[in-house]
């Protein structure tokens, strides 16, 4: 069953096309991640799905309701957490939560179950004003507020941006717990490493979806073989590898280069011999599993 069905959705601002002909389905009960750099169109897409923007072209439904015509229905059943911290800074933690509970016609007690695990972390600060919380705490409070009415589907726009690594991990753990409660979670992030926390991901770039799939499928479909290569003079190494006749792509990655070869039967020694002929010293070559970033780079270059 699909919670979200998107068909040929497009939205542009002037000449800039923010979301360009996107089609995909999000299944009920999964954690679906939109992964892409800033400006990929994630926020625009989220705003359309939460009925805040009207698409130029195409259509979409959320839980079976049209995002344009039936926006009122959508607004009472989605939980939305915008990219920027958007709670009332001059209200306390408790007041913010109470306010959003009342707005959605419920109370904290009624759905306490759902937020309990997160709220216990906030409890010591419940009399503190939201503006005085740390980044991680703000994010937890925002999640609580988005959850307080037990939404069927949760839209989280870059929830982990600007949050420390420990809080980020905690946050993903909470999402896992919410998934078990049967809530569909749609999340966007610029961090590639968060892809493995999602069930399925969509890689986004310049308003387009490059690929939608399970992470392992995306990785399995990586063409050719991938090697991590190091030598003494890295910038010449980069140039030489790019000039190599079987070269697919070369990117610098941390302290090594990720070199992808177009042949399927290539071995470490083939490359070693080539580099030796180019008089490289201290060459280190290792065949590696492609990670999500390699896949993204590969898809982007197509």
């Amino acid at each position: 069953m699909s919670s979200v069905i998107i068909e040929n959705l497009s939205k542009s601002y002037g000449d800039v096309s923010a979301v360009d002909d996107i089609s995909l389905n999000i299944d009920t009960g999964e954690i679906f991640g939109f992964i892409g750099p800033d400006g990929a169109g994630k926020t625009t897409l989220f705003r359309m799905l939460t009925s805040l923007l009207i698409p130029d072209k195409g259509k979409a439904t959320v839980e079976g309701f049209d995002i344009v015509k039936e926006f009122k229905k959508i607004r009472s059943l989605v939980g939305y957490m915008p990219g920027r911290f958007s709670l009332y800074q001059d209200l306390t933690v408790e007041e913010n939560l109470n306010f959003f509970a009342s707005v959605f016609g419920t109370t904290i007690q009624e759905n306490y179950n759902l937020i309990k695990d997160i709220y216990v972390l906030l409890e010591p600060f419940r009399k503190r004003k939201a503006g005085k919380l740390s980044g991680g705490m703000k994010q937890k409070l925002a999640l609580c507020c988005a959850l307080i009415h037990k939404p069927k589907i949760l839209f989280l726009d870059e929830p982990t941006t600007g949050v420390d690594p420990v809080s980020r991990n905690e946050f993903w753990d909470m999402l896992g717990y919410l998934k078990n409660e049967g809530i569909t979670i749609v999340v966007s992030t610029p961090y590639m490493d968060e892809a493995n926390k999602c069930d399925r991901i969509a890689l986004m770039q310049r308003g387009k979806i490059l690929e939608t799939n399970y992470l392992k499928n995306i990785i399995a479909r990586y063409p050719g073989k991938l090697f991590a290569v190091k030598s003494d003079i890295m910038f010449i190494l980069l140039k030489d590898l790019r000039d190599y006749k079987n070269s697919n792509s070369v990117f610098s990655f941390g302290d090594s280069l990720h070199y992808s070869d177009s042949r399927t039967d290539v071995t470490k020694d083939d490359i070693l011999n080539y580099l030796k002929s180019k008089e490289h010293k201290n060459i280190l070559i290792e065949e590696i599993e492609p990670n999500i970033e390699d896949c993204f780079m590969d898809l982007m270059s197509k």
Partner: protein
Amino acid sequence: MKRFLAFVSKEFKHILRDYRTLLILFGMPIAQILLFGFAITNEIKDAKIAILDFSKDNTTQEISNKILSSGYFLLYKNLSSTRDIEPAFKEGIIKEVIIFEPEFGKNLEKSKLANIQIIADASDPNLANMLIGYTSSIILDYQKDLLKGKTLPPIINTDIKMLFNPNLKSVFMFVPGLMAVILLLVSAMMTSISIAKEKELGTMEILLVSPLNPLQIIVGKVVPYFFISLINYIIIIILAKNVFLVPITGSIILLILESVLFLLTSLSLGILISTISNNQQTALMISISALMLPAIILSGYIFPVENMPLPLQVISNIIPAKWFIIIVRGIMLKGVSFSYIVTETAVLAGMTLFFVLLSIKKFKIRLE
């Protein structure tokens, strides 16, 4: 309803927690009315003058005494020559010099014609005009005394009575205008700023993606400022009545009802402004330039509308404050009943309806 109440209570919390704004909200009306009441005044009191008396006879003495005992003028110095006049003005203290020609008394006796010259410092033209007016009327008065008992030429006697504000107290004139400006300021400006704030801080995004409907959001924003404005309004009336002794000759209930109507007009204007501004800065700028300035300059608050050039007179009709000031002056000073201000009331009601409908039409249920 519970949703709405939660929203209103949230609004009150915002307002009550912002001490600085709160201080301005309640401090400003009081400061303004005290300022306007005490400092800005069109009345003349103890204006310093100099007298250059070439005659120094009984008649000039009598006239001088009459002028100086009027309470409007204070003798700063006696001059002895025309050369002293300019330096005396340049000192900047005296506002007027009265010059009696030589042989003033004799001339008056013999040829029935004597001359007084009045020189006024017209760097403040209004003041100069008033000083000359006051002086002339005192001299005229003296002349009438002289003619008493004699039946020489037929004289047309003008008996002047200043209705509704017999002492020409300027505070009487300012109070109605001040009410309009303060109600506009608190209700229109603060409402527009508080809605714009939600947009600026991004909370509007969450409010929109919630079951709250636009009407609840707008009315929820308006309710707290309605009450604050009402409290302010009552403070102004109490101050005006007790400190400045402004009379409320008409029905106070009518006055309050009309003021509530104007309050609604201001609030609807505030909402309208907020629908077209995306941040607090814009809301503030529009409120000041589109509401405050016209309300001060074009409403008849300080400058009479009748004296403006025709185009401005026409424009003044679209300024709600103008109509409200007419209504308040009518009720407070003239004590008129509702039947005299039906037109003005209808105009205000019409404007309010128009602004409300326009705002609802313009309110964005989405982000664009």
